[in-house]
C-alpha cells in the first residue's frame, strides 16, 4: 500500500478512516495491526483485500494494481490470491467442512472433484483432515476456525487477511490458530492480521500501531537470533 487514504461521508459527516498509510507485507511475512476501536484497522484490511477502494493512494496485490482493475478482474484476483479469515466464521451450516472449504474453488469454476481434492489437502495442512465430513455445528470453536483457515488457503492463495481470527476462542485454541498462521507464513504465505490481543500480535514478525487512521509506530521487522537472547 502506498499513501492510502480512505474517507467516509462528506461535509460535516466526513470521517478520515485512514490517512496516508504505506505498508508492505512481504512473502513469508506475518504482520499484525493493533490500535483502539475506530483507529482504521478493519478499513485497512478491507482495502488490502480489494473489498473496498481507497479515496487516494495505490494498493498492489501480487503485482496487480487493484485500483486499475475492472470489477470482474478485481474479484477474480480476490478469489485467486487472497484468503479471508474473519472473527465470525461464516461457515455455511448446511455444508460439511470439506464442502465449505471447496466452495471458493467451485465459485471460481473449478471442477467439483478437483475442488474436493484441494479441500482435503487444505484441511489436512491445518490439522483438520479428520473433520472433512462434519457439519459446522458438530465442531468446536477452534475446529471451526481451522476449517475457516483451510478455506482461506485453498488453491494455494498467498495472501491471508485475518480480522480478529481468535475471536472468542479460549487461550489454548487461540494459540493453536496463531501457530497455524505462523507456520503458513514460514512456508511462504503473507499474512496481515488485525487483533486487539497483544499476546497474539506477538506471533507476528512485525506489529504496526494505528491511531486515528494514521500509522503511529511499528516494531522492527524480522530480527536475527541474537535478539532472542535478550528475552531471558
Amino acid at each position: 500500500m502506498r499513501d492510502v487514504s480512505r474517507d467516509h461521508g462528506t461535509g460535516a459527516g466526513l470521517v478520515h478512516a485512514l490517512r496516508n498509510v504505506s505498508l508492505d507485507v512481504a512473502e513469508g511475512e506475518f504482520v499484525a495491526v493493533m490500535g483502539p476501536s475506530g483507529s482504521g484497522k478493519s478499513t485497512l484490511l478491507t482495502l488490502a483485500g480489494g473489498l473496498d477502494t481507497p479515496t487516494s493512494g495505490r494498493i498492489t496485490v501480487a503485482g496487480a494494481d487493484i485500483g486499475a482493475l475492472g470489477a470482474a478482474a478485481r474479484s477474480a484476483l480476490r478469489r485467486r490470491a487472497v484468503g479471508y479469515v474473519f472473527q465470525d466464521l461464516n461457515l455455511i451450516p448446511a455444508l460439511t467442512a470439506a464442502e465449505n472449504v471447496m466452495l471458493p474453488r467451485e465459485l471460481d469454476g473449478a471442477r467439483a472433484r478437483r475442488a474436493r481434492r484441494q479441500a482435503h489437502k487444505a484441511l489436512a495442512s491445518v490439522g483438520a483432515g479428520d473433520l472433512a465430513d462434519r457439519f459446522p455445528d458438530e465442531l468446536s470453536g477452534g475446529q471451526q476456525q481451522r476449517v475457516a483457515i483451510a478455506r482461506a488457503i485453498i488453491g494455494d492463495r498467498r495472501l491471508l487477511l485475518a480480522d480478529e481470527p481468535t475471536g472468542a476462542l479460549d487461550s489454548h485454541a487461540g494459540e493453536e490458530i496463531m501457530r497455524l498462521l505462523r507456520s503458513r507464513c514460514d512456508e511462504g504465505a503473507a499474512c496481515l492480521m488485525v487483533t486487539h490481543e497483544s499476546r497474539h500480535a506477538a506471533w507476528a514478525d512485525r506489529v504496526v500501531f494505528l491511531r486515528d487512521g494514521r500509522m503511529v509506530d511499528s516494531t522492527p521487522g524480522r530480527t536475527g537470533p541474537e535478539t532472542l537472547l535478550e528475552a531471558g
Partner: protein
Amino acid sequence: MSIRHGLLALLSQGPRYGYQLRAEFEASTGSSWPLNIGQVYSTLSRLERDELVTRVGADDEGRFVYRITPAGEADVREWFATPVARADRPRDELAIKLAMAVTTPGVDVRQVVQAQRTATLRTLQDLTRVKAAAPADPADQGDRAWRLVLESMIFQTEAEVRWLDHCEAFVARTAPAAPAAPPADAPLDAPIGETSR
C-alpha cells in the same frame, strides 16, 4: 523469589546434594533465575537451623546429602496452599513515570505510552519466538515446567500492554490538565537566585 521454598519442594521428592539442587532448580525454571552455589548452601544452612532439613552423611569428597524433615514437608504443603501476596513487589518505575508524565507540563503522555508499548511488544515478540521454537506440547517434565514460567512472563507482559492501552484511552478522554502549581519557595515575581536573601 523464594529460593528457600523452591529447594524445599525439590527435597520433598527425595534427598539431594547441594549441586543437584542447584541444577534441578535451574532446569525447572528454564534458568530464568540462575543460582550460584553459595546461595544454595547459605539457604540450606538456614533451613537446617530451622530444622526443616537435616544433613545425612557425605560422599568421598565431603559433600553432604540433605534430607527434608516432617516440619519441612509441612512447610512445603503450606507454601503450595498459600497464595502469593502482590504487596511485596518493589515500586513500579513505569507507573511512577506515567504518573509524572501526566503532571509534568510539556510532556506528551501519548508519546510516552506509545514508546513503552512498542518496547513492551518487542519483548512479547521475543518471548513468543522462544515459545514458538519449542514443541507445542512438550513431552518432558522439565520442558513443561519451563513452559509455565515462560508463559507467566508472556501474560505479565501482555498485562502491561493492556494497561498501557487503558492509560492511553484514559488520557485521551480526560481534559487537558490545569496549570501546575508553582514550585515551592519560588515566588513567581522573584528570580530563583534571589529567594534565599
